Every structure is written in structure tokens, then in C-alpha cells.
């Protein structure tokens, strides 16, 4: 499909060329004086439609992260002695599963983020790219710090206090930045929950801190997904 033929043809030529209708209507304005009330309704309907379409992937984004946090941290909690009283998971399997869930969510976020921004370019490219990179850059930095602590003698038990909290504090801080960039209160709420979780979870002791992360973090994302989905359904109708 030619992307934009509107510079190459006279509009009326163009219409008659593309619409082999026996009674073509070359007038692009069939109603020369539309009713103001109808126009206002049309305007508001279109604004709601654009918002709903642009934001429609956001509940999925939150739901994916909610499941990753809930399942991932429950597995970690079930991997440690003194954790889950109902069943246990071998710790290496819990650790690998956690990594796969988080990496999968990062990939899903990147794909969904590109979909939200599809076809829009310009001044917001730079802040968007910087924000996108900030997740992987700070994730890498916090992971490296953890490895540095381990190489300085940090025990596996303490490492399992450090990593979940470091991760929650990182994500919480970045959600604050996201809230500021996009004036989005849902990200602000998530940021507050994650900062509280990351700083309070160690006081529950290891490995219960993982359960706190699973229920608090996973719960917050899933509630956020539900609220966004309900809001979109209201505006989209």
C-alpha cells in the first residue's frame, strides 16, 4: 500500500480513482454545517478512543509483572529451608525459574512498550529511550553490586535478603520516574508500594522477605492491572 498518496493526486481524482462507485461523492464534507452538540460528542468520543487504544496494553503489562513477582518470589520462598510449610522447591530450580520469569517480563515490557509508542516519533523519543535503558542499566548495576558483596563474603542467606530488596527499590524508583515522565498516578502508586516493600521486607527475616515480596509486589501489580482494565473498559465504551 502506498503510504501517503495525498501529495500526488488531486483529491477528487483520487477519490474517483479509488471508489469505482456508480455514484461517487467527491465532496469530502457531505454535511456543510454539522450540529455543534454532535460535534462535541464526536470530539470526546474520538479522544476517549485514542486514549483507550494507546493505553490498552498497560493492564497486560501490569498483569505480566504481577504474575512474575507473585510466582517468582513464591518459588524463592519455597526454595529456602524454613520457607513454604506446604511444599518446597529445589533452590537452584527456584532461582532459575525466577530469572526466567523476570527476563520474560522484561522482554514482554519492551515489546508492549514499542506497541504503545508505535508510529509516534519526535521530541519524546529521547526521554522514552533513556527511560527504557534505565531499567536494564540499573538492573545490571544492582546485580553487580550484589555479586561484589558476595565476593566480599556476603552469605547466601543475606544475599537473598539483598537481591529482592535491591530489585524492589530499583523498580520502585523507576516507577516514580515513570510517573513523573508520563504524569501517571498508577505508576506513582506502584512506586510507593515497591519502595515500602523493598525497605521493610528485610525486617520480616529471611526467607519470609520473599513471601512479603510475592504478596505485596505481585498483589500491587495485579490490583493495578485490574484498576487499569476497569478504567479502560469505562472510557472505551
Amino acid at each position, binding site marked *: 500500500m502506498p503510504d501517503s498518496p495525498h501529495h500526488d493526486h488531486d483529491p477528487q481524482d483520487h477519490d474517483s480513482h479509488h471508489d469505482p462507485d456508480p455514484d461517487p461523492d467527491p465532496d469530502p464534507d457531505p454535511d456543510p454545517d454539522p450540529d455543534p452538540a454532535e460535534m462535541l460528542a464526536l470530539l470526546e468520543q474520538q479522544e476517549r478512543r485514542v486514549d483507550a487504544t494507546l493505553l490498552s496494553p498497560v493492564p497486560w503489562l501490569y498483569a505480566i509483572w504481577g504474575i512474575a513477582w507473585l510466582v517468582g518470589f513464591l518459588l524463592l520462598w519455597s526454595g529456602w529451608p524454613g520457607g513454604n510449610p506446604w511444599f518446597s522447591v529445589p533452590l537452584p530450580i527456584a532461582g532459575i525459574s525466577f530469572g526466567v520469569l523476570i527476563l520474560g517480563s522484561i522482554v514482554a515490557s519492551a515489546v508492549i512498550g514499542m506497541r504503545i509508542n508505535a508510529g*509516534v516519533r519526535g521530541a519524546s523519543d529521547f526521554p522514552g529511550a533513556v527511560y527504557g535503558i534505565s531499567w536494564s542499566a540499573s538492573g545490571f548495576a544492582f546485580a553487580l553490586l550484589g555479586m561484589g558483596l558476595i565476593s566480599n563474603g556476603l552469605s547466601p542467606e543475606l544475599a537473598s535478603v539483598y537481591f529482592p530488596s535491591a530489585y524492589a527499590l530499583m523498580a520502585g524508583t523507576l516507577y516514580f520516574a515513570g510517573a513523573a515522565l508520563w504524569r501517571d498516578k498508577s505508576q506513582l502508586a506502584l512506586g510507593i508500594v515497591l519502595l515500602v516493600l523493598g525497605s521493610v521486607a528485610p525486617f520480616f527475616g529471611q526467607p519470609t522477605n520473599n513471601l512479603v515480596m510475592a504478596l505485596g509486589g505481585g498483589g500491587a501489580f495485579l490490583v493495578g492491572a485490574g484498576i487499569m482494565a476497569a478504567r479502560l473498559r469505562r472510557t472505551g465504551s
Partner: protein
Amino acid sequence: MAELDPVIHAAARLRITATLARIPPGDRMSFPRLQELLDMTAGNLSTHLRRLEEAGYVEVAKTHSGRTPVTYLSLSTSGRRAFEDYTETLRLLLGETS
């Protein structure tokens, strides 16, 4: 009584302008994405975009994504202003205070 801008006061062009006003100033939207958000045929959309461009309300930028030509559309400063004036006049006519 306040006059409604005839360039915007047509169903299709009002919807186009409202859609482009939804992205922040300084950003532009590709033709296919705009078409998707409007559910208009390419020919119909082109016709109305041409009218908006002639009025100086819409800016057209042609670039390439690899080998594929892509057209990006955005509201000009006067287009954004005209849309705000139109909306205000519409609400005034309908007796809304805000």
C-alpha cells in the same frame, strides 16, 4: 456570535485534529497509525489531511524506514491553537462554562 472554524468543523477533520492533538507537542504520528486510530480509508484520510495542510494546521514530514517511505503528521502550532479555539467556541455555543 462566535464562528466555528470551517476547516475543523467537519466530522472527519475534527476527528483527525482531535487525534493529533492527543500526542504531545514535538511528536508526530505515522500515517498508518493515524489511519488505525481513525478507522478511515487511506484516500479519505489523505483528502482531509491535504485540506488541513493547506490551512497550515497540519505539518507533513516524509522520511524512510529502511526502504519504505513513511509519512509523519503533526499539528502545527497554529493547528493546535485552532483546535483549542474550536473546542472552546464549541463549548461556549453549547453553554458550557469550562
